[in-house]
């Protein structure tokens, strides 16, 4: 079965919701693990990589959390376009998309647990959740890890903890991260201050697709950098606390903009609506920035009876691979033709959107806010 038939369609995927999902798009906790007796994938010979692959794939596939119908495949069986789709869904890293025979992927129906076999480490396993749910994500992946430890022996040293190919992941092997939509802080020009403050706390701020990527569409990823010398719980709690503060700052920034410069805000949102509905060529960068303002408009109640899932769906469908998939030429679609096709898709989709109506505006942090993270 193709991974395309397995994946949750964009319309459904964007309807998933969780606490604080006005600002926190998703939460993720990833663990890195290696087999004790086999060299790490980056350095090992093909035979060793195959050994790890053969040993791990069936064990991961049979995890109770994977359910009876998990997707499980060797990376060489996936066409390039499908790998790119998985990257855009945040199910695999860009590094893993470049892997072939000897590397594998297993994830469950709900797309909430995903394991990469032979990425930089033998196992990179992650739990994904919509909204701010770091604790739940940690509990999920912790149980996956414990279940695996009953079947295979991981490289572990009393002093250094779990051993990883890169010393930056040593110890807990944990990477706790959340994807945040912060248009208020960007408009208020406070985002750099926030990034600096967060960096000082030992946390990294990155763009949409992780390491080395640009912050498109006002979306930022916050994650821990240090993995050794602190327990998993402490790391999760620390990031959770920081995220709650960023949420508050973002709400305050939106409030202040609305009070002091409502015309600037309405101008951005109105222009986004106008361009998306009328442009004939849009790059993915421009589309993401415009959709960011649309989402802000929905958050502020400017569009009558419109759920944010409609904007989130367009966000996903504007990504290069998702767009190519929808076109008859698929991966033969050139980038400039892609921009035309993107504009066409966005024109059609937004034609049913209500016009922004300033009389509907409601202050941020009001009744639309989800319940506090448990």
């Amino acid at each position, binding site marked *: 079965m193709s991974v395309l038939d397995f994946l949750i369609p964009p319309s459904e995927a964007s309807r998933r919701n969780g606490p604080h999902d006005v600002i926190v798009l998703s939460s993720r906790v990833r663990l890195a693990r290696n087999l004790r007796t086999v060299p790490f994938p980056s350095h090992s010979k093909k035979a060793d990589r195959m050994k790890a692959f053969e040993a791990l794939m069936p064990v991961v596939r049979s995890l109770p959390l994977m359910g009876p119908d998990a997707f499980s495949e060797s990376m060489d069986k996936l066409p390039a376009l499908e790998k790119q789709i998985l990257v855009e869904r945040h199910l695999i890293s860009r590094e893993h998309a470049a892997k072939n025979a000897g590397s594998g992927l297993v994830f469950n129906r709900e797309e909430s647990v995903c394991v990469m076999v032979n990425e930089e480490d033998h196992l990179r396993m992650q739990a994904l959740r919509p909204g701010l749910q770091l604790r739940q994500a940690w509990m999920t992946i912790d149980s996956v890890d414990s279940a695996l430890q009953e079947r295979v022996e991981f490289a*572990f040293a009393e002093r250094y903890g779990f051993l990883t190919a890169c010393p930056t992941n040593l110890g807990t092997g944990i990477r706790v991260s959340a994807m945040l939509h912060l248009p208020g802080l960007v408009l208020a020009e406070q985002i750099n201050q926030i990034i600096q403050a967060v960096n000082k706390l030992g946390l990294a701020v990155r763009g949409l697709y992780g390491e080395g990527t640009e912050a498109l569409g006002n979306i930022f990823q916050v994650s821990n950098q240090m993995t050794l010398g*602190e327990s998993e719980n402490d790391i999760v709690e620390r990031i959770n606390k920081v995220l709650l503060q960023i949420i508050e700052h973002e709400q305050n920034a939106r409030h202040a903009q609305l009070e002091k410069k409502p015309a600037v805000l309405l101008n951005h949102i109105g222009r986004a609506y106008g361009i998306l509905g009328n442009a004939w060529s849009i790059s993915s960068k421009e589309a993401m920035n415009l959709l960011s303002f649309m989402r802000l408009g929905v958050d502020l109640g400017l569009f009558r009876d419109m759920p944010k899932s409609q904007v989130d769906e367009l966000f996903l469908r504007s990504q290069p691979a998702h767009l190519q998939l929808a076109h008859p030429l698929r991966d033969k679609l050139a980038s400039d033709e892609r921009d035309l096709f993107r504009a066409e898709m966005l024109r059609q989709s937004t034609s049913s959107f209500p016009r922004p109506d300033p009389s509907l505006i409601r202050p941020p942090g009001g009744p639309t806010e989800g319940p506090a993270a448990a």
Partner: protein
Amino acid sequence: MLCQFCKVKEATVHVTEIADNKVKKVDACAACAKEKNYNDPTAFALADHLLGLGASQKMEEASEAVGAVSCDQCGYTQADFKKSGRLGCARCYEVFSEGLDSVLKTMHKDVRHRGKVPAALQKVLKSSQLLNRLTKELQDAIQREDFETAARLRDEIKAAKAVA
């Protein structure tokens, strides 16, 4: 100065190589330098990129401090470590452990693991930690000639060893 390979473009990459005690100078344009692989300095930049600024220098210091040249299990060398910032296998962490702490200090909160321990190891670790503590207390007691405490500690160690 023109590129010594294509002799068309201006040389922008200047490399001094020392191999077999012979000094060799290369002046090349960017394209030829890339083609002939004269871009080695990026190896250091890579470690910087991965581990934060200044890390490559630390890494270099660390790998110089490391006694062993290569890992006896996977054949990973100091040079591999320096170049990639990564290790080859679990055994590498023992082989290259000397000097590794200074690298770890620059990137982590502490150099000791405080997180999850595999369930299978938990019992073993707990008893070995207890044994270490009791043994140290026993030595202290003997030092101060507190033989009453020493006798009690000796029995406790015996009991702990029996359980393990």
